Structure formats: structure tokens, C-alpha cells
């Protein structure tokens, strides 16, 4: 589903290597957790995956399409949740969802059912008729999540999706991610909440200073560490080298 080969991106004319020779394959039906300290290159990688940043080098294929050569084919197949839920303040939640439905070409009857179902799941409540500027951070996050799920994307890409969510919504999101993958689709997300990654992800990748320093199942990661207890210990050991 996601194939990343030799991906590199640098800033300041090559002075800062944000992502360096990244190679990563994520299979269909997999939940992949992408971890790393602040500034490690997680958001840069995700932005390249969704077409918000142009790679300096390497290839990035999603569902068999290249983000560089066939960006529209990729965009039709992904749903994206950015790290900060910045959306149109002057639209109501419902107007935003209808906008997303229109641009992803979700038919009216399907849209009606899915919006009702997803709103039940995340419960932004009566707020959907209000302007987004009145929403709290968590409520915005819910609307962005619903907007990205509306077309049931083959690949769901999220940058820190749990931030700002209440425990119930966070739990519902995790269940939704699992159901989504059970249908043969893929979830790729970055997080700092290691317990979530440990419990939820089929595989985990750890990026540090732009390079993928570890990648595999929890069992495989444990083999890389002296302290095999928790993902937190493994993470700290690997990133403090």
C-alpha cells in the first residue's frame, strides 16, 4: 500500500537533513505507527506522503501510484489528518463536511449515512451546525477526522491524531482504525503516545534525526534493545544512542 524508497528531504540548501534515505513498506491491512522525538522527521515524511512537500530524492508510492507523478490518483485514495486541526473558521462543521464530500465525490445518499454514523462515533454533538471558530481544539480535531474518513480512504494518514481528543473519542478512533484495517485498508499515523502505539500498531517505525533507526513488530523491536520491557524503554534506548 505504501512504498517509500530512498526518500530524502533537506532544508536550508541541504544544511539540515530532515529525512535521509528513508525506506519503508507498509502492507494493506496494517496499522503502522511512526514514532520519533521532536524534529526527527515524522511530519516532514507525512507531508511528503500527502503531497504537501516535494521530496529532494527517492520515490513514494501509495496504492501503486506515485505522489510525484500521479498526485491526484494518490489524493483520491488517502485521507489526511494534519498535526494541527486548522480548518475554515467561517464554515460550519456541516458545511466543511459537505465540502469534503463534494471534493472527494461522495454521493449524497452515502454521504448522509456516513456523516450520521461518524458523528455518532465522535459526538461533536449539536456543534455541527455552528461555525468552526466556536469549536474547541478537540472538537475541531473530530471534524477533521470525520472529513478525512468520509470517503473511506484506502490509506488513512494521520499526524498525531489523538492530541486534543477526549478519552472516549480516542478509544473510538482506535477501534475505527482497527475496523478500517480489517477491511484490507491501511492506517499510517505518527504519535508520541507510546502506549497507544504499543497496543494498537501491527508494526512500528522509529525515526531519529531523519533516519529510520528501527522498524518492525513489537517483538522484533524488543530484540533490538537490551531492556525489552516496554516500548518506552526501547524508544528511549534507541533514540539516546
Amino acid at each position, binding site marked *: 500500500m505504501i512504498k517509500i524508497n530512498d526518500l530524502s528531504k533537506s532544508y536550508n540548501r541541504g544544511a539540515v537533513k530532515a529525512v535521509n534515505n528513508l525506506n519503508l513498506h507498509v502492507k494493506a491491512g496494517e496499522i503502522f505507527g511512526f514514532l520519533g522525538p521532536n524534529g526527527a522527521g515524522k511530519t516532514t515524511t507525512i*507531508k511528503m506522503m*500527502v*503531497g*504537501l*512537500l*516535494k521530496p529532494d530524492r527517492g520515490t513514494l508510492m501509495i496504492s501503486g501510484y506515485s505522489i510525484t507523478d500521479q*498526485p*491526484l490518483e494518490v*489524493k*483520491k485514495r*488517502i485521507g*489526511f489528518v*494534519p498535526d494541527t486541526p*486548522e*480548518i*475554515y473558521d*467561517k*464554515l*460550519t462543521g*456541516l*458545511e466543511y*463536511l*459537505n*465540502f*469534503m*464530500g*463534494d*471534493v*472527494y*465525490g*461522495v*454521493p*449524497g*445518499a452515502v*454521504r*448522509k449515512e456516513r*456523516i*450520521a454514523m461518524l*458523528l455518532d462515533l465522535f459526538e461533536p*454533538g*449539536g*456543534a*455541527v*451546525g*455552528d*461555525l468552526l*471558530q*466556536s469549536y474547541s481544539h478537540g472538537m475541531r480535531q473530530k471534524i477533521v477526522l470525520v472529513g478525512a474518513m468520509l470517503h473511506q480512504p484506502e490509506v488513512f494518514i494521520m499526524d498525531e491524531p489523538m492530541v486534543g481528543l477526549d478519552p472516549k473519542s480516542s478509544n473510538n478512533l482506535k477501534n475505527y482504525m482497527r475496523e478500517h484495517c480489517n477491511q484490507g485498508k491501511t492506517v499510517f499515523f505518527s504519535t508520541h503516545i507510546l502506549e497507544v502505539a504499543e497496543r494498537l500498531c501491527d508494526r512500528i517505525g522509529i525515526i531519529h534525526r531523519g533516519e529510520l533507526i528501527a522498524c518492525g513488530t513489537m517483538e522484533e523491536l524488543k530484540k533490538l534493545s537490551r531492556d525489552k520491557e516496554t516500548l518506552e524503554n526501547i524508544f528511549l534506548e534507541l533514540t539516546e544512542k
Partner: protein
Amino acid sequence: MMMLKLIGLQLKVNFNLSALKWYFKHDFKRFAGLLGLVVLVIVGISPIFFLYLMLVEASYDILLPLGQTEVVLASALVLASLLVLLFGLAFVMSVFYFSRDLSLLVPLPLQPRDILGSKFLVVLLYDYLTVTPFFLPALWVYGVNTGAGVLYWVLGGIVFLLVPVIPLALASLLILVLMRFTNLSRRRDTLRLIGFFLLLAALLAMNFFISSIPLGEEAEFLENILLDEDGLISLTTRAYPPALYAARALTAGGRESLLNLLSYLGISAAGIILVLFVGQGMFYQGLIGGAEIQRGRVLSREDLARKTAGTSSPEWAIVIREIKILIRTPIYLINSLATAALVLIILLIPMFTGGGQISYYQGLAKMEPRVVPILGAAGLIGLLSLFAPAASSSFSREGRLIWVSRVIPVAPQKQIRGKVLYAMLVSSLALPVMALILVLLLNWSLMDTVLALAAGLILTFPAVTSNLLIDLLRPYLAWDSEQKAIKQNINVLLGLAAGVGIYYLLFLAGKAAYGLTAAERPVYLVVLGGAALLGAVFYAAMLLLAPQRYRDLGG
């Protein structure tokens, strides 16, 4: 003391001083590019400036035999001051109440007057951009023609600095009161918009009554003006009395000059003190809670189903998004529509001010060949679209939210189509107003009116596409408050200059066509065909550039 620190901060933030300093040291290419851009804008607008200088020069020559050449200065002072006052209402509202840094400043241990004072200075500095092209040519023409000495130029410099102070203080006081009293209401956004337009209308109406000539006494009135040495200057400054002090400070000479300057200075200082004093009490009362939104009712299942069942094409979804954001963001609405409305009103004022001007307008509108007034009216429609920066700030207004347009699976070309459609729709708001003016005030035939409106729409096309192209090429996305996206965006000025340039070219082409053929049809063909062709070229250029620009924007 605190105010001075805040002023320093505001100057750095609003005029990008820190960024410019950084570019100068570390990225000189970018610094030079920005400088080049400023030069480009100045060069672009300079033909209008030059035409105005010629007009002032001609006015001076007419006034010379009447012995009332001071009117050149007085009318420039009045014009610049009234423009600062009228455009200042929207600017003050934007900067005082809708800047994003307010949420950072208000919780700090600062006095309201400190914040207000620093923001007042920011608007004041921007207003020199309005004052410069109107006042400096008059100062120059009068000074050079009268062979004025050093004192004149020194006093001229002081008067120049003072010109925007009083009108801006007045605009600030009006907005402080408006925002204070509308903040009580649950529907404050709507009320503020209505209040804003009422204020504008009241100021214009007041100006009209002050400056209109008494009915039935026209001959006597004109005689008095011409016989009285100060007749014309008194008439001119009736619309804005403080201009009389400024004009006399520059022309009276000796002790009287000094006294008039002191009076002008005194009124200006009193204006600032009054703003700070009133602001200390009212600023926060109008500001705090201003962003609160009234919660709507909870949607029922049926409402939700009904509202989510309809679909639109991706292009139309973009049009709807743009229109809703424009209408619901007071700053965008005021700057897009009010600016165009104001230009229209200023052009129309002479029609109502008596003194035979209405018949002059009617004469102009009935002149032959008909192609001149018809394309003239069409050009006015196009010009109004240039004053509504719906197109020239379209990409910039997306700001940090540009990520949405870049990740949605809608081809950039389709998004461009949506933006063109949206900008044409906003521009076409001028059509019904123009139709009413042409039919009701100028008694045009239906045929001529329809022709003018259709031609207006065609002339709007290159204005919209060139303005969108400019904004696509160099969008200003890194703004931190909505007013910066539209008010402090150089693309709006570049778009205006480009549009005026295009219309001037079309005017020359039409004039040449009439000169060669002495027939009307070739003029229509050349002007409208040329406009359509130019519009199509800019549109095609956007389609060509869009995929790459959408990939690189903001990244």
C-alpha cells in the same frame, strides 16, 4: 513607556522589519526581490500619479487669473483627509479589533490605551501611502509655481505628517463607539456590518449637505465665491474645515502661517489624546467577548440528513467555500465590497451636488459616438472589480489553510476554474447597481444598458484573471491576521496596477481603431476582443502553472 515598546513591536511585526533585516543579512536575493517589487508597484501606479500631477498643474493655471491658487493645496488636503477618513473606518476596525495578536496582548499587564496607541500608529503610517499621491503633487505644484522658500518646504513637511492624524482620530472614535455599543448584542457581527455601512453613508451624506450649493441661489453664490479673495478656498474646505488651517499655514506667510500651523497641530494632538482617553474606557468593552459566537440550535436527525444529502461539483464546492468565507469574515467583506462601493459613491457624488454637474454627467453619458459612453460605463464596472480585491487576494486569503486545497483530490486547474467563477460572481455584483444608474439617473435605453453591462462583464474577465495570476505566482500566505491578508498584501496593489495598465492598453487600441475606421463596431471588436483574448491568455497561463504552483505553495 510601555506604549513605546509596543510601538516598536508593532512596527517590527506589521512592516516585517525583523524579516527584512534577516533577508538583508542572510538572503540578499530575496531582499532585493522584495525591493524590486516595491519599485514595480510604484512604477505601475506612476501613470495615474502623473495624470493627477497634470490635473493639479492645469487647475493651478485656471486658478491663477482668479488669484485663488491656494485652492490647489486646499482641495488636495481635503481630498487626502476625506479618503483617510472614509477608508480609515475599515482599516481601523481591522487593525484595532481583528488582529490576531490581540489575544496575546490583552492578557498582558498593559493599559488599553497602550495597545490602542501602538495600533493607531500602525494605521497612521499606512495612511501616508494614501496621503502621499494626493497631497505631494499639490505641494510640489504650488511650491514650484510660486517660487516658495525654504520655510514653505519645511512647513509642507510638517503639514504632510499631520494630514492623516485628524481624519484617522475621527475614524477611530467612530469605530470605538460602534464596537462598544454593538458588543452588547447577540448578533454583533451583523450589527457591526450594518453600523459600518450606516457610518459610511452618514459621513457621505453630511459631506454632501455641507458642500452642496444652496438651491435657487446658484448665481449669487458663485459671484460671492469669485469676488471674495478666499471664496473658493472657504468653499473647498467646508467639506473638511481643518484643511483650512493647513492650507493657510502653507500660504498665508509670516505670523499667520505659524498661528495656523499651531492650530492644526493643536487639533491633531487633541484628536490623538481624545482617542487614547476614549479608548482607555471603551476599547476593551468593544473588544472582549467580540469573538464569542452564539451557539445555534442542536440539529435533529432529519435536519442533518437533509443538509448532508445534496452534492455539488468540486468546482462549485470551491465557489461556495470562497463566497461563504468572504461573506462571513467582516474584514474581507468590508474591504472587498465597501471599497468598491466607496469608489462608486465618490464617482457619483458630483451627480448630486448641484451646480450643473448632473447635466455634465448626463451630457457625458449621451455623447456620440455611443461606443464611448457605453465602453466608458463598461470600463467603470471593470474598474470596480479591481477595487474589490476578491481576485487579487484569493490564494493569499487561504493562508495556512492552503494545505486543504493542496491535499484534496481536485485538479489545480479545476480549483482555478472555481476561483475565476467566484471572482467573476463577486465582480458582477456591480452590474445591478450600474444598471440602476444607467436607466434611472442617465435615462439610457435598455439596449445601451444591456450592451454596457455585457461589455462590463467581458472587461472584468482580464482584470479577474490577471489579478488571480499575480496572487497565484506570489501568494502571501504567512499572515497572522485576516486584515493582513487583504490590507497589507502588495498583490492587491500589483493587481490594481496591472488592471489599470490593461484598461489603458485597451483604451489606446480602441482609440486607434476609431481613428482608422471612424466606425463604432471595430472599436467594440478591438476593445472587447482584446479583453477576452487577454483574459484567456492569463487564464491559460494559470492553468499551465497551477499544478506546479499548487505543489510548491506554502511548502
